[in-house]
């Protein structure tokens, strides 16, 4: 049997400011800390949203979240929240901002805990603290607004991505305003959109998958195949953006209640070494992982189910395998199918990284629930093929 966890409330509507006002008034919260990054904080809509929130609560701001935040961000956010006497932390941004806010919440309610101790059933004290975490995602990708995970970068001897998680860190509320992701640069919209696909496909075949996570994964996969190509082509309608936005959250719910897998386990160390955006790197590795995982009969039957669905219900042409459909989607949205096409490293440099990345991937917690247990040589093989 399984334990499942979800945000308590999800607002899917075109006015995040109004939704926040409603939520804070409902809960009688009169003091909040808004956490964001410098890019979001300069946007007009962000200022409008703050005005709405200010009509019901005192607002303090933490606008210093950098891309790929490190462990130190947690203390900064926690002390800002403490100083403000915040009863809610509102994270407005992409996965990095939401993850930073989660880590800040940990340090706010439990200053003595080290982030390394955050683990699925470790009691952190969030639930008893009365402080609510509210996520307003501005990208349609990480699913962090519905997930229990935090990914931070550790900057001791090189860069290492560390994934942590606890059910207490699923945000209390997720506010999905489909106007916000439209401000993303096109490349980011594609990268984050393909991360949604990776979350769904990994959650689908994880050994912890269950009927609830399967339902969420399958619908999210459908939404990506239906709506991402038009967004990537510059002709996304309001409906396309809205559907990708909710798909990201559904995929976040799926993997929180199932698991991720080998593509994410590889993407964490590889992305950190190459300094490439998470969604871009995980998407590039994904078809090779699907191919590898197909040696598991259970995974293969789920992949075939998706392949049949794409061909029979979405009218995709018949192809040999699911990974062929995934590659066709990449070509359709202009995303590389091989790592060599991502700028930055020569083949020689890349080959030099393979063994080290494979070792780190083997130590990544996301590998625990992959349907096939890989050896370090299997991972190195996948890495070589993916180049």
């Amino acid at each position, binding site marked *: 049997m399984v*334990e499942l966890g979800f945000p308590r409330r999800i607002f899917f509507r075109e006015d995040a400011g109004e939704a926040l006002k409603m939520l804070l008034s409902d809960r009688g919260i009169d003091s909040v800390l808004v956490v964001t990054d410098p890019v979001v904080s300069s946007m007009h809509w962000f200022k409008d949203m703050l005005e709405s929130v200010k009509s019901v609560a005192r607002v303090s701001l933490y606008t210093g979240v950098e891309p790929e935040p490190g462990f130190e961000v947690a203390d900064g956010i926690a002390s800002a929240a403490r100083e403000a006497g915040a009863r809610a932390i509102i994270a407005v941004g992409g996965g990095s901002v939401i993850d930073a806010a989660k880590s800040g919440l940990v340090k706010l309610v439990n200053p003595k805990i080290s982030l390394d101790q*955050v683990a699925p059933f470790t009691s952190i004290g969030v639930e008893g603290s009365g402080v609510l975490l509210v996520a307003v995602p501005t990208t349609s990708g990480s699913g962090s607004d519905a997930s229990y995970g935090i990914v931070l970068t550790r900057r001791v001897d090189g860069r290492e991505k560390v994934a*942590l998680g606890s059910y207490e860190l699923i945000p209390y509320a997720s506010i999905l305003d489909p106007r916000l992701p439209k401000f993303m640069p096109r490349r980011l919209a594609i990268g984050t959109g393909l991360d949604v696909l990776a979350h769904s496909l990994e959650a689908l075949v994880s050994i912890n998958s269950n009927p609830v996570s399967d339902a969420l994964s399958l619908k999210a996969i459908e939404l990506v195949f239906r709506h991402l190509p038009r967004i990537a082509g510059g002709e996304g309608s309001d409906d396309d953006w809205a559907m990708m936005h909710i798909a990201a959250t559904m995929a976040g719910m799926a993997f929180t209640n199932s698991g991720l897998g080998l593509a994410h386990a590889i993407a964490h160390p590889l992305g950190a070494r190459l300094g490439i955006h998470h969604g871009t790197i995980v998407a590039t590795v994904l078809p090779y992982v699907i191919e590898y995982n197909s040696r598991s009969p259970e995974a293969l039957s789920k992949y075939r189910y998706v392949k049949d669905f794409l061909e029979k219900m979405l009218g995709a042409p018949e192809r040999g395998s699911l990974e062929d459909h995934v590659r066709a989607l990449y070509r359709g949205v202009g995303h590389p199918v091989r790592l060599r096409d991502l700028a930055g490293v020569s083949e020689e440099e890349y080959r030099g990284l393979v063994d080290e990345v494979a070792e780190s991937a*083997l*130590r990544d917690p996301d590998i*625990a*629930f992959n349907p096939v247990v890989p050896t370090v040589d299997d991972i190195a093989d996948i890495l070589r093929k993916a180049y």
Partner: protein
Amino acid sequence: MGYRFPSREWAEEYCRLLDSSQRYRSSGRGWKYPILFKVADTNQGFTLYLEDGRCLGVEWYDDASSADAPVIISASLDEWVEVISGRINPLTAIMRRRLKIEKGDISLILRYSIAALEMVHVAQKLGLGSSGEGGGG
């Protein structure tokens, strides 16, 4: 084989087999902590002194209730049988709280998930003894 689980003999043989497993040697590299395995309904238990992919020794307790180790994993005999016989993945069992981490860091254990799976694989080779279950592997 034929050692019965749980028993001192089973634990000692398990440690020997684990120490000679090449796959455990490589997947357990970097792990430094002894693990105390407890059988909740009989109060028995044993500590494996695990270090860098090796099993350096074992301590058996007829009564493990006051034994201590940096990592303590506890479950009923039925749950251990499920895990050792391969009917439930050990990490899934942890996530579903069928194996209880009484002490230690789950996130660290998840980082050694391949080593955990190899530990089960080795336990399967040893089997469960006269209870007649398990084997294979």
